């Protein structure tokens, strides 16, 4: 396992893939860009743990802050509102 790739403040985009297995990236953030709020730690990967696997390699887990406007567009109630979501590193890429 390498060092965590992202530091707090990094801009990251969530992958849009839809694996058939159990995974913990909610659909509403896929394809959206947010800011790393903190590194939470390094944990077993739930995508293999949930299916009898060993969770290896473990994954850095981040909290990523999304603007409500980024997620919901005109449906967002107000500018400045945010949604913060825990997401594993293999779902994230540096925002282009």
């Amino acid at each position: 396992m390498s060092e965590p790739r992202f530091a707090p403040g990094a801009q990251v985009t969530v992958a849009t893939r839809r694996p058939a297995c159990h995974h913990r990236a909610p659909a509403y953030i896929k394809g959206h860009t947010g800011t790393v709020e903190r590194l939470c730690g390094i944990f077993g990967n739930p995508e293999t743990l949930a299916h009898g696997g060993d969770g290896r390699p473990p994954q850095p887990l981040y909290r990523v802050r999304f603007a409500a406007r980024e997620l919901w567009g005109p449906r967002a109630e107000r500018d400045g509102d945010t949604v913060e979501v825990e997401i594993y590193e293999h779902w994230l890429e540096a925002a282009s």
Partner: protein
Amino acid sequence: MSGGHEHGHDHDHPHPFQPDDDAGGLTEHMALVAAVRELLIEGGIYSAEDERRAIERMDARSPAAGARMVARAWVDPAYRERLLADGAAAARELGVEVGPTRLIVVADTAETKNVIVCTLCSCYPRWVLGLPPAWYKARAYRARVVVEPRAVLAEFGTQLPDGMAVRVHDSTADMRYMVLPARPEGTQDWDEEALAAIVSRDCMIGVALPRADAKAA
């Protein structure tokens, strides 16, 4: 008709019964759980009484633990800092057992209101808040609070001032969350016990605000 039971016709037909929650029969997974449980007990790993006591202990957890932590943070700025830095360590400091929980405490301010959800399932900080309310696990709350938190809070009777931003925290993975609400006006002279009594479960989920004029139910 009698007994306040009115629907404008005679009782010449059976009423449909509301199905029992466990009326669906045994699913594959329920059968698997029952089989593993029997093996563990037969093998002497633990007894049925051990299991019953463990369930009783889990069900006995209550939001009083979280309320004590909030009240301490209100009167002790150094404790507040430790609570925000490491919620689980700060809980243990007050004798609140949190097991393996990684607890993130998020603090309301004059400018921000925090609220907690688990959109994927129903992750909840049970060690400090006890069992989650039914609405927390309901699809309606989980789907709506990330999109329209103000509308949801208003349905709970919580009106936010115009200038306040809402931060929704979706508990999607290994962390658990608790809201540290702002200490309400009019409680300057209160001791910790009196303060803890106005910190309800819903205040620590983030859908309600503690009020000096509200005595805990």
